[in-house]
């Protein structure tokens, strides 16, 4: 049976290609059999495909579930009474959201894994944390979603917390000043969502005369670049501007999703997103779902050893990306490293079926 204590005792970027393949195949094959036995809907998909769960030679062969299915179906491999927490993806009003069902065990290993990955970047010590968001996001249950969950999740690295924005999303200069004075000379952990940081921190700091000294800071941000790209802001510029307004140099983006909470993909010092040994990224060609080569753009499949309470261990995202290399990033971390090119575009469908709502 799966022994997560053992699995999670390993260092996150410690295995070379072949070892990692064997390691992940063993765990993911077992998870596949577990979900097959415990989730009727998952079993139906495997059966319809004629997929034999007892004959898995590589995790590359395990059927990948489109993430959208988690919006439409209640997919779980545990009885309803064992559900301790239901995570939902962020979605605007009216949009369907993913529902991810967690039991105590899965929830715990998510936290543990996140800690392992993040502490390999910011250190094991808890730090004073400056959250580039509003405290309202935690207080207001209606707003509580992936953003709130992300903040809560990353708060476990905090010793003392301060929200940089007030309830009206305005920069709380006085609050920040007091917080930074209190922790003068210490490393500061900054966390927030990429667009929030750009819109409400970088742009606002530029307007004020306040120049906080965060040269000892380390920032982790995520949530995607879609809105920034619409303003043609690229990663490099984002970092430069951040450095200008507060002197920070250590800035790490991450890629992750609520469907596989815990196994996030952190950006290293070279600007590459890295796969830890607990998860992997496979790029697939949309023409036939075959595996794309290094440098070739395609759909992103994500696998993770964590999803046990729900069959989300092998997923096809709607993001497109490229593997940049494997085991040879100059930063020294082993595993694949990659970049995200963004969400796949909606197709312009011909034919007479309706498009009134969108275009008419």
């Amino acid at each position, binding site marked *: 049976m799966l022994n997560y204590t053992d699995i999670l005792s390993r260092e996150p970027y410690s295995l070379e290609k072949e070892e990692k393949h064997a390691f992940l195949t063993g765990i993911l094959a077992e998870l596949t059999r577990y979900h097959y036995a415990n989730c009727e809907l998952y079993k139906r998909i495997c059966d319809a495909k004629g997929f034999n769960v007892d004959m898995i030679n590589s995790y590359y062969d395990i059927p990948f579930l*489109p993430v959208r299915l988690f919006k439409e179906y209640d997919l779980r491999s545990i009885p309803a009474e064992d559900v301790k927490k239901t995570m939902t993806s962020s979605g605007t009003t009216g949009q369907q959201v993913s529902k991810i069902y967690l039991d105590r065990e899965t929830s715990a290993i998510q936290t543990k894994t996140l800690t392992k990955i993040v502490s390999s970047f910011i250190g094991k010590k808890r730090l004073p944390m400056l959250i580039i968001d509003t405290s309202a996001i935690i207080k207001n249950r209606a707003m509580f979603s992936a953003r709130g969950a992300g903040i809560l999740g990353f708060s476990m690295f905090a010793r003392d917390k301060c929200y940089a924005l007030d309830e009206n999303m305005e920069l709380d200069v006085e609050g920040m000043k007091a917080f930074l004075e209190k922790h003068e000379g210490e490393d500061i952990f900054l966390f927030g969502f990429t667009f929030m940081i750009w819109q409400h921190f970088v742009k606002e700091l530029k307007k004020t005369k306040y120049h906080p000294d965060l040269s000892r800071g380390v920032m982790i941000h995520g949530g995607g670049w879609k809105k920034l790209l619409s303003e043609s802001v690229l990663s490099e510029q984002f970092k430069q501007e951040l450095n200008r307004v507060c002197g920070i140099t250590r800035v790490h983006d991450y890629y992750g999703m609520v469907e596989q909470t815990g196994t996030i993909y952190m950006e290293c010092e070279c600007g590459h997103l890295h796969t830890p040994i607990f998860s992997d990224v496979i790029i697939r060609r949309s*023409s036939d779902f075959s595996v794309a080569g290094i440098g070739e753009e395609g759909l992103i499949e994500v696998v993770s050893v964590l999803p046990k309470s729900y069959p989300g261990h092998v997923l096809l995202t709607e993001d497109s990306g490229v593997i940049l290399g494997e085991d040879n990033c100059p930063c020294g971390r082993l595993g694949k490293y990659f970049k995200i090119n963004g969400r796949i575009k909606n197709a312009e*469908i011909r034919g007479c079926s309706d498009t009134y709502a969108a275009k008419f």
Partner: protein
Amino acid sequence: MQQSSKIMVLFGNRDFEAMMRLPVKPVFSEEICSFLNTLSGEIMRSREARRFPDVITFGFFCRKANITQLKEQYYEEGRIGRGLSLHIAPSNVPINFAYTMVAGLLAGNPCIVRASSKRFEQISLLCDLMEKVACDSIAAEYISVVQYGREKEINDYLSAMSDVRAIWGGDNTINEIRKSTLPTRAVEVCFADRYSLCVLEAKDVLKMTDRERIAQDFYNDTYLYDQNACSSPRLMYWLGNEEDIAKAKKVFWNSIHDFIAKKYTIEPVIAVDKLTMSYRAAMDIEGVKLEEDCDNLFSRISIPDLDMNLSDYVCPGGSYLEYSSETLDELCKAVNKKFQTLSYLGGDPAEYQKFVIDNGLPGIDRIVPMGKTADFSLTWDGYNLISIMSRKVESY
């Protein structure tokens, strides 16, 4: 502001109120037939038009021989137009506006045709060609091809003047346009979302040698419009014994594969949509089998019976439900009012028609050979467009 000033006229009459006062014509009037013939010639001569198979097909439809043949079929003494006709064309089929216009004209009515607001080259090309031949015909007076946004006020304004309204494509569009009332005497014909299937007689499929032709025909029915026309087959109903069907399926899908692969590229989002749909079917229906093909060109979902709402499993871009049986009987469970076109490869169309009639099926309005599902006909969705858009002057 006046509503008429918000409407962009691409071709023809700019004075909508004057159009309302134009005298109606008898069905298949000499002037209209002659205009269509001239237009057909202009299209066939146009170098530009050759780039668009759909424009050429339309030109071919308008030629004298075809119109004469249609006249024999549809003409009736004493039939005359009803008055101003308003046509709302679907947004995603560029050429449809031209066919509904022809139906309106042949029925004897002045036509205001709302073309798709997308910038399809076919629309502007056809308007240019009509401009060329319009001067010595009544076309410029009796036709107005327009574009406008989704303003309800414009729909209100035009609807209030109309004696005939034809709404093509989509339940949502129909519901939206119907918010604009028509005069009490006006008639309306709507083409709602439909569901179509293909019946394949395995024994006949195995005998067929012209594979390239079959591939082209199937392509025209499906991928040409992203398998999103109401007449595009979603269900492949295989007829025959198990052994023949297994062989015929292999032959059929193999022979169309290479042809379509050359012409059609699966966009990433379509690949994901189709995979999602096949897993949805697998989860919802017990006993589903997903066929493993060499690539994502078709997604084939074998279903164990038809006792279900098939239209819940529609996904554009090459997603097919497959069902096999010795007889058509099982179809009775599935067919509802949404069913439109039964296309066939092999078998006897007269028998299929008899099956629909004998069983009193609530749907299936057309039975056409594979490759012909998108061909325009003056009888569409079970409506005789000429008789609906005209009136009969009775005398005895």
